[in-house]
């Protein structure tokens, strides 16, 4: 029974990591842009949700899509004004630029929202555990699994089945040929970027209950996002998805069974996987 509870918690944690990090997998893997400020968009979503629910009294489930939209809008705005100038620059420039953005977002949030932890007031029906055949299942975590699971399926469908998905894949594989075929490459990138930011924002809102929410969020969780993307490989979203689940379960199980080494399990797994497959679980074998 305990094993199942651990598995359940691990899956919920992994799913959450996936929603938070998959936007980064898209920008890094598909657009080849190192966006360390990804966590800042997650934080934006978290705070938008907190303000809407706590101060304006909006229901939690109404605030979630708004968190998505606001983060996506902020992402689109920044992409058009700032990010697009850096697509052609070296990775070092991109890292320096985005880490600067992280620090600015930390200070700005500290100034406007205060430095203490913010909590989102949850409706009663999301609190506590329910009993399924003797197995204690946290309601909130169950909701996370359902929402994130649906999102993953939707994402996979968009990427593989829709016209937009094929345009995006074409734009990534060969931007010049794609624009020659009449695909508006900058527009495709902007939309993708905004969508990734929106997902992060939604992840931030969903994760506030479990991961906490304070102005240091983008710095604290940057490492987890990067682990997910490097372990998963950045060529598809299947890789990061499996990597998130693996890391989530590994982290939770490690902390439960060997609490003394708990913090190291996730890093050990990363090192082992990267030695075995340097490009990540689903990385492209040949460099592009």
């Amino acid at each position, binding site marked *: 029974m305990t094993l199942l509870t651990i598995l359940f*918690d691990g899956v919920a*944690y992994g799913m959450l990591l996936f929603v938070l990090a998959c936007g980064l997998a898209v920008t890094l893997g598909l657009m080849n842009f190192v966006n360390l400020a990804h966590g800042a968009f997650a934080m934006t979503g978290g705070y938008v949700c907190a303000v809407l629910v706590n101060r304006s009294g909006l229901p939690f489930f109404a605030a979630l899509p708004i968190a998505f939209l606001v983060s996506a809008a902020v992402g689109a705005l920044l992409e058009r004004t700032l990010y697009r100038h850096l697509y052609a620059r070296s990775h070092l420039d991109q890292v320096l630029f985005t880490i600067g953005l992280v620090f600015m977002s930390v200070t700005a949030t*500290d100034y406007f929202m*205060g430095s*203490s*932890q*913010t909590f989102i007031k949850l409706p009663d029906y999301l609190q506590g555990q329910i009993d399924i055949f003797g197995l204690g299942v946290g309601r909130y975590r169950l909701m996370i699994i359902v929402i994130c699971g649906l999102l993953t399926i939707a994402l996979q469908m968009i990427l593989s089945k829709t016209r937009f998905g094929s345009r995006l894949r074409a734009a990534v594989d060969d931007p010049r040929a794609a624009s020659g075929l009449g695909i508006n490459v900058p527009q495709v990138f902007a939309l993708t970027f905004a969508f990734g930011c929106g997902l992060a924002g939604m992840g931030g809102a969903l994760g506030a209950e*479990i991961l906490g929410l304070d102005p240091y969020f983008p710095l604290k969780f940057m490492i987890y996002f990067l682990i997910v993307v490097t372990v998963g490989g950045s060529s598809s979203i299947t890789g990061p998805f499996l990597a998130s689940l693996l890391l989530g379960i590994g982290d939770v*199980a490690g902390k439960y069974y060997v609490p003394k080494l708990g913090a190291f399990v996730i890093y050990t797994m990363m090192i082992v996987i990267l030695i075995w497959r340097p490009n990540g679980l689903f990385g492209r074998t040949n460099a592009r």
Partner: protein
Amino acid sequence: MSIRTRMMWQAAAGVALLGGFALTAAQAQESVKIGLIVPMTGGQASTGQQINNAIKLYMQKNGDTVAGKKIEIILKDDAALPDNTKRLAQELIVNDKVNVIAGFGVTPAALAAAPLATQAKIPEVVMAAGTSIITERSPYIVRTSFTLAQSSTIIGDWAAKNGIKKVATLTSDYAPGNDALNFFKEHFTAGGGQIVEEVKVPLANPDFAPFLQRMKDSKPDAVFVFVPAGQGGNFMKQYAERGLDKSGIKVIGPGDVMDDDLLNNMGDAALGAVTAHLYSAAHPSAMNKEFVASYKKAFGSRPGFMAVSGYDGIHLIYEAIKKSGGKVDGDSLIAAMKGMAWESPRGPISIDPETRDIVQNIYIREVKKVDGELYNIEFATFENVKDPGKTKK
């Protein structure tokens, strides 16, 4: 000798030299300068903000002149980084010629400034940092906050006497967490209690789920918890989510976790937690009611124990200047501060003349809902608690 060490030597020599002249310099000046070094930005910012607010409040109430001297506060933000603290303390002492340095949000910051206080012979009033050893690092350090040992030993004693037999501990793996754990363990097991599970959580810990499951499986009477301020809320929420509250497992710990600053945002999950601490905004004294009301009016929030420590810190400086008759050199001030006793919003407190550390009542409190807000309601008092970290020696 590297450049860095040489510069440090020069700086140290400069400070020592200045110390020699401090007496003459102090006699010539009309104002008393207090260098307040606290974290105003970064993860510890709420500590600095509370201390700064409380000092402003005190000076509004009591004026800015004592014994014919005008008090001047110079606020510096060290973001709780000891490197910054040391540099700022040096600048304050050498350039601004301050008479007192005060504040210090975290232990490493207080320790970084200690040698400077000794060399310059000026008082260092510690208003936040809580490790026992701090006051032993310089004869010029006085503390108005608390030591972790004070609250951790008391909750250990209380738990052992009040029907709690088996405890599982969950503490963050850093110096204060280990301090809290060891002091608690020592007193709880001496009182006949048993530790059934001991878990140290990494400091940057995103999710308590696996640790809480372990707690639940070990079926204790209570969970002893110490996590950095800010993580307390997450802990309590997940504790309730996992149904530990319904399995009758109590939460106990030092009161930092249930800081007034954060308590109200934790939600009903925090109800029933029993902690030992020096201050609750609900402390039932006329003085405290007035303090809480004026603090709320001025800053729009509830004062926490950091605010009270700052309030008492500035009071101590004021009273020491009065008592020494306006003599503001370090030795006169420290002599005046030793043994001083007064009524604070937290209750009666005094400065131990031997250790220059604070002696205060430690209260056992339970989180309850009063007028729709969560408060720590005090229900038992351990009087005049000295720092157990030192009395052992």
